[in-house]
């Protein structure tokens, strides 16, 4: 295991921001942050590992996408700020969750899907499905359609049998 990395200060300084270094606040429907005395009225939160560690190692970016620091864990922060951060992440990473798959038709290499999501229905086309239906771990799937829209399936196993059977032939 590499030891020199932890010894060299130039390397370990990845810009961690602890709860003492930064305070988040709500600012006109955006998220603002005060980092070591400097005020940033608008910051963006970006996940480094969106699937495996959704609430850890969050990068804090300024409006020009310059990184201001990395927050180790949401849980390090008091509840109020945690909620603000969660909401900011939710807005940024929002994608609809598929609750039920009504039909999947394959025509000439494209998949035409008709699904039910929270709050409605969607019909979309998926191209190159071996690439655009991606399984994150044993349960989750992300489907990207031809327009770039993303759809989540949180737990494929827990879906109803009909939905599973419709999609199964196209999973790799």
């Amino acid at each position, binding site marked *: 295991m590499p*030891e*020199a990395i932890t010894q060299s200060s130039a390397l370990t300084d990845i810009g961690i921001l602890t709860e003492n270094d930064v305070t988040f606040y709500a600012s006109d429907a955006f998220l603002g942050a005060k980092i070591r005395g400097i005020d940033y009225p608008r910051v963006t939160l970006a996940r480094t590992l*969106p699937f495996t560690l959704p609430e850890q190692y969050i990068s804090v970016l300024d409006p020009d996408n310059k990184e201001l620091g990395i927050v180790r864990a949401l849980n390090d922060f008091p509840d109020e700020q945690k909620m603000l951060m969660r909401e900011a992440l939710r807005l940024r990473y929002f994608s609809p969750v598929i609750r039920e798959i009504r039909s999947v038709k394959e025509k000439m290499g494209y998949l035409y899907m008709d699904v039910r999501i929270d709050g409605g229905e969607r019909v979309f086309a998926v191209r190159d499905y071996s690439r655009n239906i991606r399984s994150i771990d044993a349960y989750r799937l992300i489907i990207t359609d031809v327009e770039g829209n993303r759809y989540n399936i949180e737990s494929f196993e827990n879906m109803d049998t009909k939905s599973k059977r419709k999609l199964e032939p196209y999973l790799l």
Partner: protein
Amino acid sequence: MKGIFMTNHSLPARLADVFKKQKCDAGKLLFYLSCDLLEDGNPGETLLAFDSDTLYTACGTVELIRTGGAKKLESVFMLKSFNKQPLRDFSNLRVERRIATSALLGDRDGKPVCLAVASIGETKRMEDFARAYNDYLKGETPRMAPYKSRVCPNCGMPYPEEGRDVCPGCSGKLSITGRLLSYFKDYRGKVAIIILVMLASTGFSLVTPYVGSKLLYDEVLTEGGRFFGLVFGIVALIFAARLCTTLMNILYTWVIGSIMPWIVYDLKLKIFTAMQRLSVGYYTNKQTGALMTRVNRDANNIYWFFVDGVPYLFVNSVLFIGVGVMMLRMSWKLALIAIAAIPLVIIFFRLMWSGFRMLHHRLWVHDAKLSSLVSDTLAGQRVIKAFAKEDAELDRFDNASGNLATAEVHLGNAESTTFPLVYLLMFAAQVIITAVGGIMVLRGEITVGTLIAFTSYMFMLYGPLEFMSWVSNWWSRCVDSAQRVFEIIDANPDVKDAEHPVEKDDIDGSIEFDHVTFEYEPARPVLKEMCLNVKAGQMLGIVGKAGAGKSTMANLMARLYDPTEGVVRIDGVDLRELPMSLVRRNIGLVSQEIYLFIGSIADNIRYACPEASIEEVIAAAKTAGAHDFIMKLPDAYETRVGAGGQDLSGGERQRLSIARVIIQNPKILILDEATAAMDTETERRIQDSINALKSGRTTIAIAHRLSTLRDADYITVILDGKIVEYGRHDELIRKKGEFYKLYTIQTEALKYTGIGV
């Protein structure tokens, strides 16, 4: 001068003869070259040879002469001219490639002279001769690669594949098949079951016509028969026999199906293990794509041959013999007629198949041409549109497509006429047998039942016959595949661990090249007796023109290849004596081609240390300047890269590659043009970060761009496989040598674009 030797085989008899007749000593010759043409390009033989002071040229033709009244013609070498010239008269020997020939040129009194001409296939040997000659004149050790025969010693045919000394015509089919069969060793029991079941199945199918025809007609339906009237009984028996055959078939197919995949699994595992063990040199010789296809397709060929081919062959052979026996038992006269027809049928089938093979091949060729045309035009749309050549491409397509359609028509025609004719032939044979048999029945020689059974047996013969006529091809293909597979399994890695490697836990990182010579191909050295010393913790910059040998040095340091001569030492120990795991762990190589595995960016960075924490990964990415572009991707560190994943630019991939090696944290870091695809600003930033990690690490940086080497402690300039300059940056500038030349060219170029240095 050490080691002057004649590396090619000794002068062939006819040429040694010439020397003797001219009263010259062939024993003193150092090298010779035999060209298959005369100087004027006509067929003949030109011999060039030299000893320590003379260049000999002998030209002659080969003629067929009837010697001394003998009936046969003998080929004799007729000498036309013999020249002796002082060695020093000629210098700077070189080879000029023409269209189908090559010429050996030399300079005499400053003017070029043609010394010999040969077919282009001999070019390499000409080049070797030229190099040996030039080296000898310079006073260096001349070396010539040993003469390697490109012809199979057994049958005299040339080896079809470059680099592979295998003659497909002479390969021992039986020995390879034997070796394949050895994979079935562990399944002996199941194989025995399979054989028994197949025999039983064949037995039952042989019984069916006997019961269904002979017994039925003669004993059940005829008055006075043994089982007269027992129709239901006989029908039940017929059905039972058929049922047993089917059950046996199912059984043996099932058992084969249960063992073959595991045998192929075994084979594939051995292949993959062997491939992992092999050194880098093996992979550079053969394209990876060809290897992949080879492993897959060959394993499949072997699989199908054993699953389909072998059982079918076995069953059909037994059936054939069984049917023959039954026929002979029933009526030897009819049997003889049937047997007489067999050779005709076999010949006919063979002709048919070879004819079809031609038509199929032609079809395949046109199909392939059309496919490649389509993929070509689709890929080149930009160019086609730029030159407004759509109509021309359409014509090309029309033509190719038309050819394909025509070929298909031909094949279809052949098939629609041939198969019915074949069946007609078989029917004719049956008719003849029926006629002869009918007469025999009327004469009372055989019974009706016998005749009908006989006809059924005849039909059972045709299947096996047809199969036999093409199983041989199938077998050949399987053997060919097995041979390729065994080649990989048998290949010996060039670079392997010593028997008793030196025990060492850690290394400091000093590198030494002790008169290292290296050649990728025999007698073409890339590095020549190179001596170099790098102290642990230093940074060495290596510059040189393309092809000078810089990447080769990196490969030798990382022990991807072993030196041909000389020693590479780490911490004073021969690299070959150190355990490979220690070496690989402590040497990090960032090369120009970056391979990203299929997986997330984080996985790729962590490749050397899968247990690295996310903080270490981010830290490494930041040092390598990769963090920013990674965070711009929606899935950040979990973005899928590698084949079929996110496409990254050259610079981005280089940065990931650097992050990868930072996590590895090796004692020796080799950067081979590691920042070539980046702009100078990004490069500068990355270099600064890497510099922060410099202490305690030996860094070797190879570059074209001198700005890359700004932080090097020492710089060395490589030219033509040798070190021509070595020293500190300022020293070399003051010297005004090679390095200074490169430096001024690059700064001049920058000045020209208006950038001050």
